[in-house]
């Protein structure tokens, strides 16, 4: 029957080439016997419509062929948890590093319309490339250990061995309300709204200054370009924070202590302050028309910039000290916990 031949041909095309003929010969024998039974049932050779209906009730060729293939996966259950751990760790740090590098490049290079999309693309490309490389490496290890376990006995051993001492410590139960998924979702939504508000500020300063914005328009002062660099650094920091929150939501990491996230964000928070402090000539506010107004407002301008400079230095010192104290405290607590568990 031509339809059966075509069905078998479709199955054959999707079978491993070295076993194609053998499998198809067996399948043909089985299906032809089945067809004969069907013809005996109806009492005549199947009409084209009946043949269509009969072949149509067979499993789809792709499914039939697929079942003959060995079970396939790139990374098996033995290696998968290690793969996932390394993938998460590496992509996380690669993301942070490339985001910082691209952020700095964004602020140090001349501004252009394509700079921000370009930077985002660079970060995404590097992260994806790293993830792909890690996946390929683990797939190769999986293949090698599956087909030649003697090549990497350590990896084969790693699949079955585990260390009692490596079990995680039980965190002491913290007082107060338990963190919920809803809480994290609300945080992410609030953060998104805040980011929108931040992005609208350059066009609508009234959103931060209120009616005072109209008074500022009337003043002889305006902000120096470094303020915009500082502003974009704050935007990038908020984007990173929001992305982190979304990743936490996706992976379920919001349940954890999130100390690493806390420290990384605090550390990154220092960058905009440093950028602002490095303002050329320590000028954050300038005159709209220096030639005409310097004589009148020059002294006042110098006082304003001096106040901003002192303020920024104080903020930087406080931020660095609190950060150092928090990290030190965390290390001390971890050390005490490890001493307790060792005892």
């Amino acid at each position, binding site marked *: 029957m031509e339809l059966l031949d075509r069905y078998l041909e479709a199955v054959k095309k999707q079978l491993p080439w070295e076993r194609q003929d053998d499998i198809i010969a067996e399948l043909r*024998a089985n299906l032809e016997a089945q067809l004969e039974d069907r013809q005996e049932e109806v009492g005549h050779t199947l009409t084209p419509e009946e043949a269509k209906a009969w072949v149509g009730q067979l499993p789809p060729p792709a499914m039939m062929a697929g*079942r003959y293939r060995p*079970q396939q*996966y790139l990374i098996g259950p033995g290696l998968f948890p290690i793969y996932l751990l390394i993938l998460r760790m590496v992509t996380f740090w690669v993301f942070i590093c490339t985001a910082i590098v691209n952020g700095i490049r964004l602020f140090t290079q001349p501004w252009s319309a394509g700079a921000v999309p370009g930077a985002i693309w660079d970060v995404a490309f590097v992260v994806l490339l790293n993830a792909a490389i890690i996946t390929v490496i683990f797939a190769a290890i999986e293949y090698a250990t599956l087909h030649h376990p003697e090549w990497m006995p350590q990896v084969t051993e790693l699949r079955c061995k585990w260390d009692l001492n490596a079990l995680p410590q039980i965190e002491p139960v913290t007082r107060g309300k338990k963190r919920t998924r809803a809480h994290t979702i609300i945080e992410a939504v609030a953060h998104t709204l805040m980011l929108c508000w931040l992005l609208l500020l350059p066009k609508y300063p009234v959103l931060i200054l209120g009616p005072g914005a109209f008074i500022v328009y009337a003043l002889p002062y305006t902000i120096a370009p470094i303020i915009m660099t500082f502003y974009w650094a704050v935007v990038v920091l908020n984007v990173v924070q929001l992305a982190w929150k979304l990743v936490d939501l996706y992976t379920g990491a919001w349940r954890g202590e999130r100390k690493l996230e806390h420290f990384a964000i605090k550390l990154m928070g220092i960058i905009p302050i440093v950028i602002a402090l490095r303002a050329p000539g320590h000028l954050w506010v300038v005159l709209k028309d220096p030639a005409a107004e310097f004589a009148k407002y020059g002294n006042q301008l110098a006082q304003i910039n001096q106040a901003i400079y002192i303020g920024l230095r104080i903020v930087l010192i406080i931020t660095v000290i609190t950060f150092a104290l928090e990290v030190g405290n965390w290390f001390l607590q971890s050390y005490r916990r490890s001493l307790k568990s060792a005892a």
Partner: protein
Amino acid sequence: MTSYTVCNTVYFIQCMGYSMTVAENQFENLRLELRRGCLTLAVLAQLKQEHYGYTLRKALAAQGLEIDESTLYPLLRRLESQGLLTSEWREEEKRNKRFYRLSADGEAIFARLLDEWNAINLAIGNIL
């Protein structure tokens, strides 16, 4: 459970009808999981006598266990590659057919699986 199995199960379920509800999908997944081991046991039991693919399928169906072609025929190959079945090509009714039967290793494994089946059956009976 491998991604391969999951993909095949999902594909199979998709082929069964696009209008399946989530609950039906869930039931179908669990049913397939439940059947998988039982089918192997049934095939091993039936192959104490020699059969080729189609007659084996008919014999199982006659006893109330319907198995579709894409499950049974590849399963025979897999069991053979694991050394539980032996096979030979032979002509019957003017057609070359591949006949399978339980190997010596297969008989030993089948006996152990049967004990396991009986123990599970008893336990489930007690629980229910």
